[in-house]
């Protein structure tokens, strides 16, 4: 596996644990709705994330629209954006009634998601700077999008011009130097000087930007399947 998706950590508090258990044991119980709402706020504060719990809450809203809280939905959607490249944002939208999606703040989030889905990072950062008031509620948003941008770049490129990277993660100058330094330690990026064109960054190798690394897993057989012919061979 070449690329590790940096997952938002799973919550560790004991109270949080019980909410996860509630969802696992009884996912169709209207009584756990307040717990799930509190849990969304807890995810926002602690930087943790649980798609299953949030989908469970959206489902309860779908069953009882009169109990729906739009501020909570906004938080869920921002957390889902932060989970890119996973398609969590889309999964949440499937469960949110169209009339709710028409609200201004959700329209903005949908536009932001569109830019991320189509890798238009310049437009994304422009739009995001206009919507600070919505996004600031969730700490870690920028870093999450940056790591998504790095993910996409690493899927696509072996070497990438500094300017392209700068635009994708919306970091420039000294801050970018610092970012690059950190990445060279953590992921083994190499900064290359090329004549006249400015810096070029060699991203870490993975099976997607170095297809020759792809393991030929297509012809392996699962042990489970072999057990089927064991009686014959025996």
């Amino acid at each position, binding site marked *: *596996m070449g*690329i590790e*998706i940096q*997952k938002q950590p799973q919550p560790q508090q004991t109270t949080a644990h019980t909410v996860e258990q509630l969802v696992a044991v009884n*996912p*169709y119980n*209207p009584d756990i709705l307040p717990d799930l709402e509190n849990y969304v706020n807890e995810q926002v504060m602690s930087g943790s994330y649980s*798609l*299953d719990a949030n*989908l*469970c809450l959206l*489902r309860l809203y*779908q*069953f*009882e*629209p*009169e109990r729906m809280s739009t501020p909570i939905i906004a938080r869920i959607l921002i957390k889902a954006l932060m989970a890119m*490249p*996973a*398609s969590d944002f*889309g*999964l949440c*939208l*499937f*469960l949110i*009634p*169209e009339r709710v999606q028409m609200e201004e703040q959700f329209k903005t989030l949908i536009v932001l998601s*569109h830019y991320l*889905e*189509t*890798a*238009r*990072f*310049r437009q994304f950062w422009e739009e995001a700077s206009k919507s600070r008031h919505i996004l600031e509620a969730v700490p870690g948003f920028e870093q999450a999008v940056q790591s998504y941008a790095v993910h*996409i*770049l690493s*899927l*696509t*490129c*072996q*070497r*990438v*011009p500094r300017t*392209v990277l700068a635009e994708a993660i919306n970091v420039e100058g000294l801050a970018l130097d610092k970012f690059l330094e950190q990445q060279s330690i953590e992921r083994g990026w190499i900064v290359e000087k*090329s004549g006249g064109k400015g810096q*070029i960054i060699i991203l870490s190798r993975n099976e*997607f*930007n*170095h*297809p020759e690394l792809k393991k*030929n897993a*297509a*012809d392996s*057989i699962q042990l*489970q399947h*072999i057990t*089927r*012919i064991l009686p*014959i*061979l025996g």
Partner: protein
Amino acid sequence: MAATYDHDDHHHSNAPSTLSSTDYDPNFVPDSVKTFVVLLYRHIREKNVYEIHQMYETTFHTISDRKFKDTPWPSVDAIAPSVDNDHVFCLLYREMWFRHLYARMQPTLKQRIDSWDNYCSLFQVVLHGVVNMQLPNQWLWDMVDEFVYQFQSFCQYRAKMKSKTEQEIALLRQFDQAWSVYGVLNYLQALVDKSMIIDILEREKEGLEQFTADDGYDYNGGSNVLRVLGYFSMVGLLRVHCLLGDYHTGLKCMRPIDISQHGVYTTVIGSHITTIYHYGFANLMLRRYVVAIREFNKILLYIYKTKQYHQKSPQYEQILKKNEQMYALLAICLSLCPQTKLVEETVNSQLREKYGEKMSRMQRYDDEAFALYDELFSYACPKFITPSPPNYDEPLVNYNQDAYRLQLKLFLYEVKQQQLLYGVRTFLKVYSTISLGKLSTYMEVDEATLRTILMTYKHKTHTVDADGKIISNADIDFYIDDDMVHIIESKTPKRYGDYFMRQIAKLEGVMNDMDRIKLE
């Protein structure tokens, strides 16, 4: 909005007729019916699964065709004395009674509510473990299938508020628990939990339990009812979640069943098709096109080969319908993710025949292509539902199309995001290396935009699976080195392993057959 969506998703094509026959007497029991219930009751007590299956699959339909074409069967009270007033048998009889009514007539609201009550009583009995019958898989599947179908039908019915009479609205308010989404999901979940089916399947992997090998039946004198109902309830949950637009959760409910293997779900054609249809659809909506293509391909080939054996089955029309819908879904998948190599030759030629011309237009990405995605999706998607009751105090509006419109809109949004990928695909196919500058001139976009298109391509063709691992759906592999695009011709290696495994099993079968032949 495509009109094709408003199709009747009913099991049978018979035009529903209202109860016009004034000569229907619920208390009159013809001899054939009496013989039927007496025999069926006896076979159930004697656990004669074969005879039960015959009566259930054949005799019931024969009598229905002859005597009850557009009227209900005799009421349960009328037949009860013939079967010792057996509580469980009466519940089973009523379940069939309602199923027959739904298939051939238009149920009234009262009947819908009564049918819900009957399912509650039936499932209560099963859940409390006092059942010791052995019923055919086909029947148990039909119960779960019909339960979910009637729920879907109820939601559709309730959402058409404009045509409701005051009386109907009063009934809806009074019986607000009937077919509530919580009730439906909790019954299915309770069947899964109480049956311990997940545990059974887990133990089976370790060789501690026999379930699949015995097709779910219990040959030790026990009952198969709870555990097989629990098993099929997982499929039921997948379907309900798909109807609600919750694809992630739907697939999660199915995880205990290994879809790549033969299983109890493949023993009943209706269950096999329903499972794969919803499994494939959910994966399509999650952008896991390769998974969807593989499963659609397998089931379509299977239907193609076995269709003839089901011609007389009451499910035949439903099989054909789902067959056509899955071809449409396959056409969508392949248009978004052109991996034709994954499709077997027979299926491919059927697909070309049905959708070849449309598929070539779908790859053009103009308004017409867009309209075709709309058309195929609307034709082939599940009948989405809004699970919540309306607010009866507000002006009454129809909301039966809301859920479908939302899913369609979001799907088309995805199609639009992938709009530019087809253009870049055609170029990547013919080059092994090309500079960004040159490619951007060909595509008539600037270099920065081209980079976003290429990155979108990578993003859309690489999905994250349930474990956070990235899986590639890419038909073409490439990478950018500074400002050069390098394209790698993808070769799908032949899967020798599978081939050999199958041949080994086949050879063993032939040798066994030969051993059995005695030469005179």
